[in-house]
């Protein structure tokens, strides 16, 4: 029994109208970033600008605060975090997956337990540690606490488990060192997992606010999230055009990347959820 097409129409109606509400903030942000001040403070709804002020707004966004610097900082911090997470997690994941050693079981249980720790819960001790190391208000301070990702270890171990042991034996016969096995055999085979983890890690740290807010207090090392808040405070909230332009610039890289590689992004972000 085929249901009627009334349902089809209703389905599109409900989904399309709800979807509009969901993307409205994005649309409103971009539209506002194109409008001159006079039209923004107009007390009536006007979707499209009469006169375009995009150049002025984006120019103001990049010159009134070091927006470009914030973006570069975001790039430095996210990439450095990801690379150190890989460098630390992959060898450990290989050992946990493919080697036998005393304490392996305990180590794995410790990793499972550490997965439960929300980063905010350790922020006070991190702050004290960064203070001791002299890393307050520095790139090191932004990066170091996240250099270890127990999630990364856990995830890579799961994927390494599915790499056949014969492959490793063959590599050993061919004279590969364990180091070479990890980086030249395991990592290439687990590349999809590594990409998914990379997306997860980079998105999480590009968007992070809690830790940067605590550790960074000068604009030179502000990450994008801190930067856009600083912009708002500096401009005292009366130049919405440039502010929305700045927000657009900060949101754009991830959203554009997401639109181009949706499957991978959804996989990467929801990976922490389901298998």
């Amino acid at each position, binding site marked *: 029994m085929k249901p009627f097409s009334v349902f089809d129409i209703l389905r599109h109606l409900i989904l399309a109208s709800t979807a509009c509400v969901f993307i409205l*903030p994005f649309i*409103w942000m971009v539209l506002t970033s194109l409008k001159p001040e006079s039209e923004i403070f107009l007390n009536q709804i006007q979707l499209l600008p009469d006169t375009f002020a995009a150049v002025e707004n984006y120019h103001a966004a990049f010159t009134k605060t070091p927006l470009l610097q914030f973006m570069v900082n975001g790039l430095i911090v996210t990439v450095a975090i990801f690379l150190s997470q890989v460098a630390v997690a992959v060898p*450990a994941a290989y050992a946990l997956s493919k080697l*036998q050693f005393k304490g392996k079981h305990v180590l794995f249980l410790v990793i499972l337990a550490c997965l439960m720790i929300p980063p*905010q819960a350790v922020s006070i001790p*991190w702050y004290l540690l960064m203070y001791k190391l002299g890393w307050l208000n520095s790139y090191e301070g932004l990066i170091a606490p996240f250099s*270890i990702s127990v999630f990364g270890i856990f995830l890579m171990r799961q994927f390494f488990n599915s790499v056949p042991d014969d492959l490793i034996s063959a590599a050993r016969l061919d004279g590969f060192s364990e180091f070479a096995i990890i980086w030249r055999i395991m990592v290439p085979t687990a590349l999809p997992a590594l990409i998914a983890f990379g997306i997860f890690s980079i998105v999480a740290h590009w968007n992070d606010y809690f830790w940067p807010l605590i550790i960074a207090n000068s604009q030179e090392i502000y990450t994008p999230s801190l930067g856009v808040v600083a912009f708002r405070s500096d401009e005292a909230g009366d130049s919405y055009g440039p502010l929305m332009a700045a927000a657009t610039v900060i949101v754009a890289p991830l959203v554009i990347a997401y639109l181009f590689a949706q499957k991978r992004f959804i996989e990467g972000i929801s990976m922490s959820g389901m298998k």
Partner: protein
Amino acid sequence: MSQHAVVLDAHLQSEAPQALGKTTVSLPLGQAREQRTAWLLSLPAVLLIVLFLIGPIIAIVLLSFTDWQLGMSSYNWIGLANYIQLSEDEAFLAALKNTLFYVALVLPGSVFGGLAIAVLIEARPSGVGLYRTLFFLPVMGTLIAMSIVWEYILQPDFGLLNMMLAELGIEGRNWLNDKDSVMYVLAGIGIWHQLGYNMVLFMSGLLAIPAQLYEAADMDGVPHGWSRFRLITWPMLGPVTLFVVVITAIKAFQVFDTVEVLTRGGPGKNSEVLLHLMYVEGFQFFRTSYAAAITVIFLFIVLLITLLKTRFMEKKVHYS
């Protein structure tokens, strides 16, 4: 984002315990060498885990039993005094109440909302990709930047929301500055941010339901629509739903970004939440040990949710 999510994932992975015990590397390295190599490879991870996770967790619990503040050269053990003070602190009680209220709104809103959208999207093949893209977009948008956009939309005089309401003849309000509306607005933004994530999880859960079950239901004459949902879809989504509930609850308890940017806990203490209070006490007033006690309570709640889920998982919900 959600590292805890993974924990749950760990429990879902029934193969994990078996994998621990097996070794079939047919060309062994030689036992002593294998031991040495394995520890050498794990060493950086182990050191960093101790330095950044285990050490700090122990430190935060110990700190909460002292009177230490940043900059003090000595400290005293004061037992439960911080916790007793918390139980009489109006700001803390407000934060606890508001956080629970926030969770109580965001949890059903984004779980049932995500489920409804997922079911509706998967009901027909047309537009599946497009709708998924659109609903997932808020998950991708940097929440801090989008909070500032929301602030502008909610602005009382020329914000989009009040202007739209005015068109309908409804008088708007100063949403973020009104103690009656502030938590609802924050929860609304929370649902907006979380729903797409839950939707994606539900969509993969729906795809995993065997088509034969629906065919069998057809043969048994189960009508389409609600009955089929109640008899097949909902029970089969059990494990996914539980999982989504736990992740959402944990994320909702961590609400911070929107509060910090939009209200700073105000007006009064009407939108104060646990993590924001912890941030204010710990990093603005530098009452370190007091903030540590708040952290311990926050941690306790988050762990409790995870453990409850594990117990429930073992007992009840299973497909196979």
